[in-house]
């Protein structure tokens, strides 16, 4: 009897659990947009402090343009909190994420609503976004997000250190970058590194496989969704070059030097402190330098490709913040109006870009005379427009496929990776297995 009661309780709990997880489905979209907006709409975003103020200023503009609308802003909500809030059925209308890696899961699950019907109804021109930006805001034919500015990655160069070494231009190939970096590297009396020309260690600051991929035009996934890491020869080329560069200086020496550097997002950042002459970083670094190291003489350039892929020069890695309408949205029309304003209104996008120092994503904003563009920042706008720029594909396992690969790359650069082809084949298997677990029967 006791066992039967326990079994019944367990079954009831299971049914309750499963039932509790079912959220409301997307509501139908009205045939025409409302002529007058009124009510309260909630906005969840991850920005804090100064950056949250920038968002608030644009929200204020939206409220001023729509006097009967109140935006309930929830700042400092990272992706994990956003995910839990949506899953728990909290009142999230518009959510902004800092990672394009959530797009696969959020689009496929319906956590972010399909924006297609709204876009079609209101005639929003998606052509104002570049192909790359469009690709990282949709998954498997479902557009559930729009871009809220972009992060673009390129090379930062310390002009003083380059001058001292006799260089007056940015490297055009990775081989040239290596040659310049070795020439600019100086050592202490005990043999340890004093100033490093360029840090080739995978995992250091923004050195990640995704950010390096444009240097060889490497691809991540095949058309059928399986891993392309082992079959894309570019990856192996890139890894062999990087490993040779690491060996040239010495892995242990680089590790000891890297461990002594300041945290990436602190005033002690190695590039800002003059400890690394050339650094791979995002366009946002220009704002950090303005704030924390205003006397630094620096320039920016695309991260060069390998010599065998010289035609790719000018491209870089693009990712960005994305916004969507949560499935639990109580007022999806208001949410759509706010999201559309934040992502496509030229004035709003320019104001956000000037304030956050991220790259704008619409053609009109990029061409706007109000956009504040320094010489260094201009490089990233050029990268945005370059056809060789690329992003990482959306996946239902988030960034899991990248992590599998980088885990192996980390071993490889230490000399523990064994045969490269076999190692990459194993990475393919790991990625495919993980994807099958999520998408399989």
């Amino acid at each position: 009897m006791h066992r039967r009661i326990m079994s019944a309780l367990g079954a009831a709990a299971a049914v309750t659990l499963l039932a509790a997880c079912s959220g409301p489905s997307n509501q139908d979209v009205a045939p025409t947009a409302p002529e007058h907006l009124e009510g309260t709409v909630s906005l969840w975003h991850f920005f804090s402090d100064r950056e949250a103020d920038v968002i608030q200023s644009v929200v204020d503009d939206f409220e001023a343009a729509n006097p009967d609308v109140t935006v309930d802003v929830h700042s400092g909500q990272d992706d994990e909190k956003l995910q839990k809030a949506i899953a728990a059925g909290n009142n999230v209308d518009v959510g902004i994420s800092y990672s394009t890696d959530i797009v696969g899961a959020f689009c496929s699950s319906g956590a972010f609503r399909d924006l297609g019907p709204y876009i079609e109804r209101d005639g929003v021109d998606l052509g104002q976004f570049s192909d790359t930006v469009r690709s990282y805001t949709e998954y498997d034919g479902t557009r559930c997000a729009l871009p809220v500015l972009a992060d673009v990655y390129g090379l930062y160069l310390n002009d003083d250190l380059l001058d001292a070494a006799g260089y007056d231009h940015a490297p055009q190939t990775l081989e040239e970058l290596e040659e310049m970096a070795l020439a600019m590297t100086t050592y202490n009396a005990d043999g340890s590194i004093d100033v490093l020309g360029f840090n080739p260690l995978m995992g250091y600051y923004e050195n990640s496989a995704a950010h390096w991929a444009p240097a060889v035009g490497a691809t991540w996934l095949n058309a059928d969704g399986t891993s392309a890491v082992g079959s894309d020869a570019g990856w192996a080329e890139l890894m062999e070059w990087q490993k040779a560069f690491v060996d040239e200086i010495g892995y242990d020496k680089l590790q000891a030097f890297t461990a002594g550097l300041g945290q990436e997002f602190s005033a002690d950042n190695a590039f800002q402190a003059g400890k690394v002459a050339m650094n791979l970083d995002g366009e946002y670094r220009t704002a950090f330098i303005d704030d924390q190291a205003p006397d630094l003489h620096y320039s920016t350039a695309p991260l060069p490709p390998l010599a065998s892929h010289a035609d790719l020069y000018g491209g870089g890695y693009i990712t960005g913040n994305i916004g969507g309408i949560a499935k639990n949205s109580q007022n999806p029309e208001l949410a759509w109006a706010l999201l559309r304003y934040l992502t496509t209104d030229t004035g709003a996008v320019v104001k956000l870009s000037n304030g956050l120092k991220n790259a704008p994503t619409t053609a009109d904003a990029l061409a706007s005379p109000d956009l504040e563009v320094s010489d260094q920042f201009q490089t990233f706008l050029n990268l945005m427009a370059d056809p060789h720029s690329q992003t990482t594909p959306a996946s239902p396992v988030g960034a899991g496929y990248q992590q599998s690969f980088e885990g192996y790359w980390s071993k490889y650069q230490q000399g523990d990776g064994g045969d490269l082809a076999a190692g990459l084949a194993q990475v393919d298997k790991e990625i495919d297995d993980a994807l099958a677990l999520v998408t399989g029967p």
Partner: protein
Amino acid sequence: MTTVSAPSGRAASHAVRPGLRRSQRRRRLTAYGMLAPALLGLAVFFGYPLIASIVFSFTRYNLLDDPQWIGLRNYEYLFTQDPKVWVAAGNTLWFVAFLVPVRIVCALAVAGLLVRARQASGFWRTAFYLPALVPPVASVVAFVFLFNPGTGPVNAVIRFFGGQGPLWFNDPALSKPSLLLLGVWVLGDIMIIFLAALLDVPREQYEAAELDGANAPQRFRYVTFPNLVPVLVFALVTGVIAALQYFTEAAVASTVALGKASVGEGAGAVLGYPDDSLLTYTQWLYVRGFSNYQLGYASALAVLLFVVAALFLVLLLRRVDAFTPEEAQG
């Protein structure tokens, strides 16, 4: 001497007066009433999550979508395909095998010395306990900076004497031992329990042992140790559970040593640094659940952890008689 013949069997139970039965029922209800808050807490915060985890472990679930029943697929992947689960389990077992006993032995040694301290004993007790009051995140950050290969004072001293300091938290071979040092530094929590237990050992037992000619090791073996067994078992059980759930210290060490922090999707790229040497089981569970959106699979990992922890504790407690209520009373 008065002989009382007790009524036996059914006749006896029938002989209980209704008033007495009411009083017993009331007492029982009072007991249940007083237990209710604890039982409710247990049901809500242990029973429900446990059942939920077990149910979710048989589903494909990303927290955002409805769970989809997939039978044993998660467990099949766990045991045959997961590329890192055994690495993470191995790292966790390393902490169980080394961190727990080393902390217990060191805490016992320090407590033994403090019992004998004649002067400034209060100062020494405070000094050894204080590190345990430092928040774990702060103590890890301090330790990683202390052992920073490039700028840390430990390697600076080694260099001063002409040596080449190791990479400590940046070396896969030394990252776990480095955390072990941290664990020893913050041993105040169990040291204070051992100290109380040592002070509680009856002096007469030592005097009797001395009269019997027992030397110091024999006094420890036959007097101190038996008195400490319940406390040792407590330290072992709680230590093993904490080691099986080891997360914060390893995660912070990886983050600080790598020089960058991340949560959610980015966590998988940071946790475990260097070279997965600090990737513990619970971190891997977190990565799969919240970085890779595989809450169903993460639940399977959680269920396995629960089973392993429960089995370990059952075996441990069965072998240690001193922890049973009878022994404690006797």
